[in-house]
C-alpha cells in the first residue's frame, strides 16, 4: 500500500517535471545596439595556430563566467549568457569573422581552472574578470586590458555614511572567502580584521546579506559591484572610490602573438569607434557609474 502511494507520488512528480516546460525569455537580455556585432568578412590572422584551429573547426569556444550579473551571467531559464564580458567576447568573435549568434559557444570556466583551460586548448580565449598579473603571464598571454577595475564598495542606495575606504573602519564588510579583496581589507586594516570582515562563498550571498541589512558594504572589483548595482539600481549603488587597480585582459594561449595583436587591434578599434561605449552603456552602465576607457598594454 505504502509502496504504491509512494510510486504514485514519484510518478506524479516526474510527470510534473517533464510535461509542462516554459521556455525562458530572459529578462536582462536587452539586445546590444544594431551594428555592434557586425560580422567581419575574410578575416586572416597570419601565423596564429589558434586561429587556424578555429578556422578548421568553423566555430569559436569562449571561456566565461556564469555567476556575475552584468558581466558574465547565465540566465537559468534560457541558458543564455549576458553581460559586459560576454558582449566583449561577442565583439571579438564578430571581428574575427564568426557570427556571435550561431558560431560562438560559451563555456563556463571556474576562476581556479582558467589557466589550465587555456593551456589545454579547451577554449580559444577567455573573457571573465581576468586580471593581468605577472604570475599568470608565465602561463598564458593577455590582450587588453579592455577594462580597468579597482576594489570598491557596494552599499545600499540610501547609505551616505560610507563614502570611501577610510569610512568603513567600524562597518561590516563582506567579500568572498579566501579571495584578494578580503585579504586587502584585513591587511591594510581598513576594517576591524577579526570581527568585521564577513566572508561568504559568493558575491551573490554577500549582496543578499547587504539587502537584509546584516552587513554594511560588499567589497570587490568595481566591475563586479556595478553588475549587481545595475540589476537593482533603485536599491544599490557603487561608492566609486577605488583603492586598488585590476586590469582585465582577454586570456589567450601563451605563444600566439599573432592572435594577441589581432585582438588588441579589435579592442583598439572598439574604443575609437564607440562600440566599447555602446556595450558598456548597455550593461554595466545601467548601474549609473561612468565607464572609463582603458589604455591598451601591448607586448
Amino acid at each position: 500500500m505504502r509502496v504504491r502511494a509512494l510510486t504514485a507520488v514519484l510518478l506524479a512528480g516526474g510527470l510534473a517535471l517533464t510535461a509542462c516546460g516554459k521556455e525562458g525569455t530572459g529578462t536582462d537580455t536587452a539586445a546590444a545596439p544594431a551594428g555592434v556585432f557586425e560580422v567581419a568578412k575574410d578575416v586572416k590572422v597570419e601565423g596564429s595556430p589558434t586561429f587556424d584551429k578555429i578556422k578548421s573547426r568553423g566555430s569559436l569556444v569562449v571561456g566565461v563566467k556564469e555567476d556575475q550579473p552584468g558581466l558574465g551571467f547565465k540566465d537559468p531559464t534560457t541558458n543564455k549568457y549576458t553581460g559586459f564580458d560576454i558582449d566583449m567576447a561577442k565583439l571579438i568573435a564578430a571581428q574575427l569573422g564568426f557570427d556571435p549568434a550561431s558560431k560562438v559557444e560559451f563555456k563556463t570556466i571556474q576562476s581556479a581552472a582558467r589557466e589550465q583551460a587555456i593551456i589545454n586548448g579547451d577554449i580559444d580565449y577567455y573573457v571573465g574578470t581576468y586580471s593581468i598579473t605577472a604570475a599568470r603571464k608565465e602561463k598564458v598571454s593577455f590582450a587588453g586590458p579592455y577594462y580597468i577595475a579597482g576594489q570598491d564598495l557596494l552599499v545600499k542606495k540610501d547609505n551616505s555614511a560610507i563614502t570611501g575606504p577610510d569610512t568603513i573602519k567600524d562597518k561590516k564588510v563582506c567579500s568572498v572567502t579566501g579571495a584578494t579583496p578580503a585579504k586587502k581589507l584585513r591587511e591594510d586594516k581598513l576594517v576591524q580584521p577579526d570581527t568585521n570582515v564577513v566572508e561568504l562563498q559568493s558575491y551573490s550571498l554577500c549582496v543578499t546579506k547587504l539587502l537584509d541589512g546584516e552587513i554594511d558594504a560588499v567589497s570587490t572589483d568595481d566591475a563586479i559591484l556595478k553588475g549587481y548595482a545595475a540589476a537593482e539600481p533603485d536599491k544599490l549603488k557603487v561608492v566609486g572610490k577605488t583603492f586598488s587597480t585590476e586590469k582585465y585582459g582577454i586570456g589567450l594561449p601563451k605563444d600566439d602573438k599573432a592572435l594577441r595583436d589581432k585582438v588588441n587591434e579589435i579592442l583598439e578599434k572598439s574604443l575609437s569607434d564607440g562600440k566599447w561605449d555602446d556595450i558598456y552603456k548597455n550593461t554595466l552602465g545601467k548601474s549609473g557609474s561612468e565607464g572609463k576607457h582603458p589604455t591598451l598594454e601591448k607586448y
Partner: protein
Amino acid sequence: MTTVLFDVPGPRARVRHRLLAVVGIAAIVAFLGYVIWRFIDTGQFEGRKWSWIEYKQIQISLVEALGRTLSAFAVGAALALVFGAVFAAARLSDHRWVSAPAAVVVELFRAIPLVIMMFFFYYGLPATGVKLTAFTSVVLSLMLYNGSVLAEVFRAGINSLPKGQAEAAYALGMRKTQVMVFVLLPQALRAMMPTIISQLVVLLKDTALGFLITFEELLYWGRQIGGQLQFGRPLIPTMIVVAATYIGLCLLLTWFANYLEKRNRRNKKVIALENDKAELVVIGNDHQA
C-alpha cells in the same frame, strides 16, 4: 498499555491528558500559524517566487543536480562498502602487522571531520600537483569516512555471530579465508543489512557537504536558483523543494532498511545476533552531517 514511565491512565489522568492535549494542540497551532504567517507576510507563497518551476531549463538543471547528488551517493556508497569490507577483514586478521595498521586507519578516518577531508582533497592536494575535481573529492572523502564506519559495522557483525558457526566450518576442513567468505561474511552482511543501510542514509546526507567545495549538487542548485533576482530571490521556495527531496530520498532508504529488517525477522536463515554489540558501534556514528 503501561510504559516504563506511566501507568495505565485512570479517569482523572485521562481528563488531565485530554486537557494537556488541547493546550498542546493550541500551542502547536499558534506556532505553526505564526510561521505560516511569516511566510505569507514576506511573500514566500507568491506566484513570482515559485514561477521558476515552470521553466524547462530550470527543470532540466534540477534533474541534473539531483543526478549529481545521486551519482555521488552511488559511487561513494559502492566505494565505502568495498573499503569497509577490506578493512574489516584486515582488522580481523590474525597477523598483527595487518590488523594493527588497519585499526589505526579506521580509527583515524572516523575522527577526522568530513569537511576537513574534502578541503584537504580539493584545496590542499593541488599543491602537490594532484588536481581532483569536486566530485572526486566528495566521493573519496565519503569513502574514507563511511568506509571506516562500515568496517566497524562489518567487524561487529562478524564478531557477534555464534562461535559455533566458525567452529563448525573449521571442523568441516575449511580454510580461514573460506570460513570468512562462505560462512561468516554472508551471515553478518544479512544480519547487519539494516544498520548498513542506515549508514548509507548518512552517506546520502553527507553528499550535501559537497556544497562547501562548490560541487554542483542539489543544495548548490537550490542556492543558485534561490539567488536569481528575476524571481525575487526565491531561496525559501528552492530550499523547501531541496529539503523535501532529501527527506523523501532518505525516508525511501530508511523504509527499505525497515522492510529488510522485517523480512529478516521472518527469515529463519538469518541468525539473530547475540547481543546489541553491533548496534552500539553504529549508534554514535549516525550523525555526521
